């Protein structure tokens, strides 16, 4: 399995094209397009994204997205791998999460509890699902689709995600074509 499978797996999970699929899979970006080099994330932004990611993939008996530094990963990917259109959606989306939190709980996202965050993002996830289902092909992605995709991608290719939540052997040494699987065994990371 290769990176293409990792990316298309995320697409399958979310029932739609991966954001900037042309970036991750086929790369048909016009060479004339300027990259948004001015995108910069502050430590507060990273902390915020860590908490968003942690809400999506929390710590259980295995580490969560925050321990896997998914917030940092998200900023690197938005800066280097998103085109300007998607960068704009993502940056505005960060503000929208915070606004939604204030509207629902009278407090910003960083000030609400873990349960409140889960409640809030579950609502936004539903809103995102409806939007993705009904949107036209040329409409932009929903910001939460971006955040969720980057979270899953970043987490399951992190050391914590790949080796603790899943199973990963760097050098398998052999191929066993048919081995027994019992429910509860973790999936291979790659």
């Amino acid at each position, binding site marked *: *399995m*290769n*990176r*293409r499978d*990792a*990316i298309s*797996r995320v697409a*399958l*999970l*979310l*029932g739609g094209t991966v954001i900037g699929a042309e*970036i*991750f899979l*086929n*790369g*048909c*970006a*016009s*060479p004339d397009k300027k990259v948004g080099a001015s995108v910069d994330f502050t430590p507060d932004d990273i902390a915020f994204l860590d908490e968003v990611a942690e*809400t*999506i*993939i*929390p710590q*259980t008996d295995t580490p*969560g997205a925050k321990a896997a530094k998914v917030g940092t990963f998200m900023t*690197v990917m938005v800066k*280097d*791998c*998103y*085109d300007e259109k998607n960068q704009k959606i993502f940056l505005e989306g960060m503000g929208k999460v915070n606004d939604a939190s204030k509207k629902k709980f009278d407090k910003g996202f960083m000030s609400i509890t873990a349960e409140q965050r889960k409640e809030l*993002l*579950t609502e936004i*996830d539903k809103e995102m699902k409806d939007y993705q289902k009904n949107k036209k092909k040329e409409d932009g992605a929903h910001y939460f689709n971006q955040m*969720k995709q980057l979270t*899953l*991608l970043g987490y*399951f*290719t992190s*050391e914590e995600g*790949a080796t603790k*939540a899943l199973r*990963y052997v*760097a*050098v*398998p*040494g*052999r*191929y*066993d*074509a*048919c*081995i*027994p*699987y019992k*429910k509860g*065994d*973790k*999936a*291979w990371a*790659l």
Partner: protein
Amino acid sequence: MPGDSLNVNLNNQSVSQNTYDAIVVGSGISGGWAAKELCEKGLKTLVLERGRNVEHIKDYAGTEKDPWDLPHHCNLTQQDKTESPIQSKCYAYDEVSKKFFVKDSEHPYNQVKRFDWIRGYQVGGRSLLWGRQSYRLSDIDFEANAKDGFGVDWPIRYKDIAPWYSYVEKFAGINGNKDGLPQLPDGEFLPPMEMNCLEKHVAAQMKSKFKDRVMIIGRSANHTARVGDRGPCQYRNKCHQGCPFGGYFSSNSATLPAAARTGNLTLRPNSIVLEVLYDKDRKRATGVRILDAETNKTQEYYAKVIFLNASTLGTSFILLHSVSDAFPNGLGNSSGQVGHNLMDHHYGVGANGIYEGFEDQYYYGRRPNGIYIPRFRNISKETKRSDYVRGFGYQGGASRGRPGNGDGIGVELKEHLTEPGVWRMGIGSWGEHLPYYENKVTLNHDKKDKFGLPTLDIDCEFKENEKAMRKDMMASAAEILEAAGLKKVKTYDSNPAPGFCIHEMGTARMGRDPKTSVLNKFNQMHDVKNVYITDGSCMTSSACQNPSLTYMALTARACDHAVNELKKGNL
């Protein structure tokens, strides 16, 4: 324009210093073989590679890294897309392997019709990156042009090349199963890899439900047992990043080291061959002129025999650029065929589906090989089609992903995503491309590259036979999966441009008649007996099998011929 020649004074010493028994242009999958064979037969051989050096293992930085140790976890950036919009589309292009691809911005060409030219300019060429699938052609392929009239007759038949397939398979290290199929001759194999349980199920269903088609395990150049000092394969499935275990065949891991061991090899990277030098009185090539990519100076090298292995379009460039009084249209081009008859396999069409079963089955390791369905159309009277000629094969495989439902967030989502998902299988098809004279490359002297050299105009398309074949490629894929009980079977046709399969070939084809072909049955130029061409450009038809094994066999056979001709004084 190129810089000053270092050969202003052609004194005897400088000529003799730059004289070899043989020159090989290109160090990719066929050039590496030419180097090995010529060196092992005692010839002092100069290998000229246009790109930089890449040493086996030493220069594979990044292959040892896990995804989290890479800045983008092995994903591509906007910069990749901007610098290499074409290369970055390739399945093998990732954060680590991209250093083995050219930067499109540095190596322009002109698409008269859409053509994705995927290249690797370094020692080893694309043998570092290749898909490693290795299949023999059969007489069904060698007789095809003569039988249906497209192209010209191959000047060889299977019996001519069979011993050479055996010869190269043994050294290269090809795994596979002896399946006894006339359209896909068996080879000298390392132990075959194994099918997983869904693949075994589908293969068994195919056997019972179709009398004319089979699914076999793929045959690949991964070493399932140790081959000399190489391998065995460790099932990381990161071959294209370079293998620190020497687990698959490349020039870097196998043929170049063998050549070097003889003491007869001189490898000169950063050497762009501009032209083959020709002596019209002796009717022989005398050597080549190169441009040094680092110093921008030209240099001449001389040899008794020259092998052009610069890859199909690289060799086309050299021939078309080697203009002289004797050959105003390019070296050895009295036929007018050089640059014409360009072919590539057409692929990216097939089907996939899910299988509700085998929940208690899984696998261990990442197998760098899949299944193969050999050609079953137009291989006999019974399988003759009325809608197209020639045929296609399938590659594919089955796997369990992780669940497709990503609804919701939190603990339930996380737990759901850490279980293997439903079994899925996909098969994709590779189809033959007929040789059409109008599919061609020519030099564009108005658009020069950064070296001041003309660029290539590439004018190539798939035509009616290919389009008709694709309908069957897609429908038959679905038929196979549905017959095996797969559900939610979906077909696809991604309609890739020519070039994207990276099996471009045919522009200096072999043939019986010097009026309609460029090479004779030993890959010698009809017009220039001491120039041999054994890369993809020599192919008279494309068949549907992955072609690299055939390039290797033709190369070893041609080297044997060349050395014998030298000994007899014929060159």
